[in-house]
C-alpha cells in the first residue's frame, strides 16, 4: 500500500503490526485477549486470522510472565510484541521490564539484545479510575536500556511502531486510550520524521509548547485559541521520550524564549520535569521566563467524570499558562 489515506490511530497500529508481521516472520504478538478477542481496544483484531494462533498468542492473566516470556523469546531469535492491556499493570511486570529486559545487554557485556516491543496504552478519558488511567512513562524513561515511544498521530502510530519493530533494544510503546478513534492521514511509505526526532506540529514565534501523546492535540487546541488573540505558539511533538530530541526543542526555545511543557502524567517526578530541566540547561540564556509545566494534578485519577477531566491539563489551562507568561 502506498500513498496517503485517511484512517484511525487504532487501524494504523493494526496495520503496522500486520505489515511488520508480513515482513518479518520472527515477530509474534503475545498478551491477554490479543487473539480471538482482538485486543481490549481492538488493535489486534483480525491478526490471529491472518497470522495464526502460533504468532498471535492469547496469554493467561500473568503480566509478569508475559513480559518475562517476551524477554526470553527476544533473546532466542524472536521479536515479540508483548501487550499490557493497561500501562497501569506495569507494576506487576516492572521487574521483568526494568531488571531483565532493560539490563540484559549491558549485564551480559553486549552478548545479546532484547529486541522486543512492549505495547500498552495509558491515560485518562474513559472514567476508568485510578488503576486504569495513569500515565506511567516516567518509570521507563528513568530506566537506562529502554526506548520509549508515545505516538500522538495516526501517522506516528504506524511509523513509530514499524520502526520500534526494527530496533535492537526493548521499546516501551505507549498508546493513548483516548486516541484510538482519532482519524488522520497515513502514508505507509513516508514517516513524519525519523525515529528519535521531534516534529514541529505548528510553527510559532512567541512561545514553545512541548508535548507528547494526547497532549499534542490539547497543545494544538490551545495554540489555535491563542492565535485568535495574536499569540503564536509553536507546538512540538516529541514522539519518542527515549531518544529525547532536545535539539529540535532547543532550536525552538532559543527563538521563542518561552517554553511550556505539557504532559498528562501527574506533575511531580514526571517526564515534564526532565524536559523542563533540560530546556533550562540548554536554553538558559535565551529564556525570558521560567520553563512552565502544565501537567496532571498530583492526585490519583478519580472515577467521577468531572473530577477526572479536572485532574489532567486541557487546552484552556495550557493557553492560560501561556497568557500568564507573556508580558
Amino acid at each position: 500500500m502506498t500513498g496517503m489515506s485517511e484512517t484511525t490511530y487504532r487501524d494504523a497500529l493494526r496495520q503496522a503490526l500486520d505489515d511488520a508481521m508480513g515482513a518479518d516472520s520472527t515477530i509474534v504478538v503475545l498478551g491477554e485477549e490479543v487473539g480471538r478477542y482482538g485486543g481490549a481496544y481492538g488493535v489486534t483484531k483480525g491478526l490471529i486470522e491472518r497470522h495464526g494462533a502460533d504468532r498471535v498468542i492469547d496469554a493467561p492473566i500473568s503480566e509478569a510472565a508475559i513480559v518475562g516470556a517476551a524477554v526470553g523469546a527476544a533473546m532466542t531469535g524472536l521479536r515479540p510484541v508483548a501487550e499490557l492491556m493497561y500501562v497501569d499493570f506495569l507494576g506487576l511486570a516492572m521487574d521483568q521490564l526494568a531488571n531483565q529486559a532493560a539490563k540484559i545487554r549491558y549485564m551480559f557485556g553486549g552478548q545479546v539484545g532484547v529486541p522486543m516491543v512492549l505495547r500498552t496504552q495509558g491515560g485518562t478519558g474513559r472514567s476508568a479510575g485510578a488503576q486504569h488511567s495513569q500515565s506511567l512513562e516516567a518509570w521507563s524513561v528513568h530506566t537506562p536500556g529502554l526506548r520509549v515511544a508515545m505516538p500522538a498521530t495516526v501517522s506516528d502510530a504506524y511509523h513509530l511502531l514499524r520502526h520500534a519493530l526494527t530496533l535492537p533494544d526493548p521499546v516501551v510503546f505507549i498508546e493513548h486510550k483516548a486516541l484510538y478513534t482519532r482519524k488522520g492521514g497515513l502514508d505507509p511509505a513516508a514517516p513524519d520524521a525519523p525515529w528519535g526526532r521531534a516534529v514541529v506540529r505548528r510553527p510559532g514565534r512567541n512561545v514553545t509548547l512541548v508535548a507528547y501523546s494526547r497532549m499534542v492535540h490539547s497543545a494544538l487546541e490551545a495554540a489555535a485559541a491563542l492565535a485568535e488573540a495574536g499569540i503564536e505558539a509553536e507546538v512540538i511533538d516529541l514522539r519518542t521520550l527515549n531518544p529525547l530530541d532536545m535539539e529540535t526543542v532547543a532550536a525552538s526555545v532559543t527563538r521563542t524564549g518561552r517554553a511550556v511543557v505539557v504532559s498528562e502524567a501527574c506533575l511531580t517526578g514526571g517526564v515534564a520535569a526532565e524536559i523542563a530541566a533540560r530546556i533550562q540547561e540548554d536554553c538558559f540564556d535565551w529564556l525570558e521566563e521560567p520553563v512552565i509545566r502544565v501537567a496532571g494534578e498530583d492526585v490519583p485519577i478519580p472515577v467521577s467524570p468531572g473530577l477526572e477531566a479536572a485532574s489532567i491539563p486541557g487546552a484552556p489551562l495550557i493557553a492560560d499558562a501561556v497568557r500568564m507568561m507573556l508580558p
Partner: protein
Amino acid sequence: MPAPTDRLPFELYRTMCRIRAFEERVGELFVRQETAGSMLHLSIGEEGAAAGIGSAMRAGDSFTTHHRGHGIFLARGGQPDRMMAEIAGKRTGYCRGKGGSMHIADMGLGHLGANAIVGGGIPAVVGAGLSYRRLKKDAVSVAFFGDGAMQQGILYESMNMAALWRLPVLFVCINNQYGMGTRIDRASANLAWDLRARSFGLEAENADGVDVMEVRGAAERLLAAAREGRPGFLAVSCYRFYGHARMDKSPYRTPEEEEEGRARDPIARLRADLLAGDAREAELDTIVEAAGREMDAAVDFAVAAPRPEPGELFEDVYGPDQPAPLPVRRRIETILGGGVAR
C-alpha cells in the same frame, strides 16, 4: 449473623433477588450513561456465590473483591442507594464518587475494597488476618476473585503465607468460566484448582454456584476452619450470563453455550426448590417485587445525587491534617507571580 435455619433459604432467595435487581438496574443506568466510567461488570449468574458465602460470614469479618463485586457487597449489607451513587460517580456514594464500581469499599461493613487489578486485592486479606491475630479479633478475612486471577502469581504467594502463618483467611474463586473472552481451559493448564490450593497448604473445596445452599455449606465449613487457623480455598463454579463488561456481547461464545449457562440460574433453582417445599408463589413474588422497588429507589437516589465539588479533587490524597497537593494552576500562578510553589 445467619438467619434461623428454616428462614435461611428465604433470606438467601431475597439476597439473590436483590443482587439481580441491582445489577439489572445498574446495567440500565449504564445504557442511560448515568454511570461513571467505561467499565461495568455485572455479576448476574453469580448470585449463588455472593449470597452463599456472604451469608455465612459474620459481622466483623472483612473481605476484598475483584471488579465484579456488587453482589458480594450487597450480600454483606452494602446499601444499594450509596452503591448506586458511587457507581454513578456521585458525592453521596460510598467513596464520594472517586472509586466507582471497581473501587467501591466500606470499612464499616468490612469491605476492604474492590479492585481493578486482577488479583490486586488478594494479599490484603493476609494482612487483615495478621491484624486479627495480633489484635485478638475473632474475625476472618475473605478474598473474592475470578478464575482469571488463578493465573496471577500473587495469589500463590498469598496462599502460601496464609497457610504458613495459619491465618484466619479464606480465598474464594468465583469461576464464571471466562476471563474476558478467554475460557478457563485456554488460560489454565490444569483446572483442578483445589489441588493447587492444597499444594500450598490450604483446605480446599469446590461448590456448584447454581446451588446456593451447597455454597453456603462449604463456606460455613471453610470459614469455621479459617477461624481456627486453618485457612482455605473455595472454588464456586457458575456462569457469567452476559458479557465481560456491559458493552461486550460475548461473540466468542455460542448461543447454545450461553443458553446452557444461563439455565444454571441459582435464583430459578432456589425458587424451584422452595416451591417444591412449602413456599407459595405469592410469597416469593413479594420478595422479587420488594427487591425491584428497593433498587428503583436506589436508582432514583443515585441519579438525583450531587456530583463531587471540584475542590474534592485534592482531598484525601493524604491523611487528615496533611496539606493537600498544590493545584497545577495555582503553581503556575505562583511561579509567574514570583513566589515559591511548594
